[in-house]
Each structure stands twice: as C-alpha cells, then as structure tokens.
C-alpha cells in the first residue's frame, strides 16, 4: 500500500540553525501539505503546495519557513533559523485530485535546544 514517508524520524538542532525536513508523498498525488503538532496541542496546518507554488499558508508559516519540491519525488520544509518554540512533530501529507483524503506521513520530531 502506498504511503507517505518522512526523514529523518528525529532531528535535534541548536537554536538558530537551519533544518530541512524531507517528505516523499504518495507517488500519484499532486497536492502536498505540512502540519505540525506541539506536544499536547492540536495538529496545526502550516502550508499547502501545488504545481510548484504555495497554495495556502497559515499565520505560523512566516519568513523563517519555506517549502520546495526539488525533484519529482521529494517535498521539503526548511526552517531557516530555528527557535525553541519550533520544537514539535512535523507531518507531511498528500492527496490526489479528489482532495478529500489527506494521507499523513509518520512525522519528524524536531527538537531545538
């Protein structure tokens, strides 16, 4: 069964460092999303992406964040200068043209020290 994969599973970084979180969406999906979940809180939307451009972004997704589809399979989230409050689980999701069902990856746990 096709699934969304994410790497790394856990990333530890120091405050102010740049991190890149990677996702491989389901192969025939065209719409991609990033969400995050701070421990004990709701899963929150960050950004959606289609046809090599951002479709929608939340107020969380400020200039420190960027997304890219560098090739035909990967989808990345970059945080330019990490802050302590960026510590969270980051989930990638994808969906096909129907759009209703978003499939999530296992997540990357980001710890900023």
């Amino acid at each position, binding site marked *: 069964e096709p699934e*969304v994969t994410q790497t790394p599973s856990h990333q530890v970084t120091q405050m102010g460092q740049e991190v890149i979180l990677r996702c491989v969406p389901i192969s025939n999906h065209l719409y991609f999303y990033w969400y995050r979940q701070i421990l004990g809180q709701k899963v*929150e939307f960050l950004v*959606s992406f*289609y046809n090599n451009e951002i*479709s*929608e972004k939340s107020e969380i997704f400020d200039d420190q964040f960027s997304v890219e589809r560098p090739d035909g399979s990967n989808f990345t989230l970059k945080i330019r200068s990490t802050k302590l409050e960026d510590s969270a689980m980051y989930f990638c999701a994808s969906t096909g043209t129907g759009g*209703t069902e978003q499939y*999530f990856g296992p997540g990357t746990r980001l710890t900023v020290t």
Partner: protein
Amino acid sequence: QKEVEQDPGPLSVPEGAIVSLNCTYSNSAFQYFMWYRQYSRKGPELLMYTYSSGNKEDGRFTAQVDKSSKYISLFIRDSQPSDSATYLCANLGTFRGSTLGRLYFGRGTQLTVWP
C-alpha cells in the same frame, strides 16, 4: 472562527464496550468531517469521513454529523485493545471552492481499551 473543540479525555473502557467520541465546531460552512486515529508518536491515519449531515458506517465504526447543532460523533462498537489510540476529529476547509483546503483538527481524545 474555524475552531474545532474536542474533549481530550482520557477515556478508559473495558473490551467490548461501545465508545462514543465527540466534537463540536463553530464554522457552519464546513461540509466534510473527518476522523483520524493517531498512535503514540505516529502520524494521523484517516479512519473515515462524512459529507454533510448524516451517518456513515464502516465495520465497527460509525461517524455521525449533526450540522444543525455543529456536533460530530464517532461510535466504536465492540471495542478492542487495539483501538487504544488518540482519535482526532477534523474539518476540511475549502480552497478556491475545492476540497483541497487545510484540515482543522480537534485536540484529540485519548482512548484506552483494557482487556
């Protein structure tokens, strides 16, 4: 306001019990109502979704939406220890009139089914 509210529990029931999980939402424009299951430190897994008001059944799971009261429910019959997880309700937003919008999640209800 596009908030989704959900009692975080925890909820603990014996095996075989009927479980009722509930959410409320504030935005009457929502049309798609999703239930995700999340095991500890894993990604949300889509269980089922409902369009507009009404019921939808899938095996032991029944999703119910009452748009008049903005109330969403998930019922689990004959609950099993393997059902132990956090259950997240979510509403699907629209994007330019399509169903490609963001998900608005509740906090999740932690369920434990003990043998």
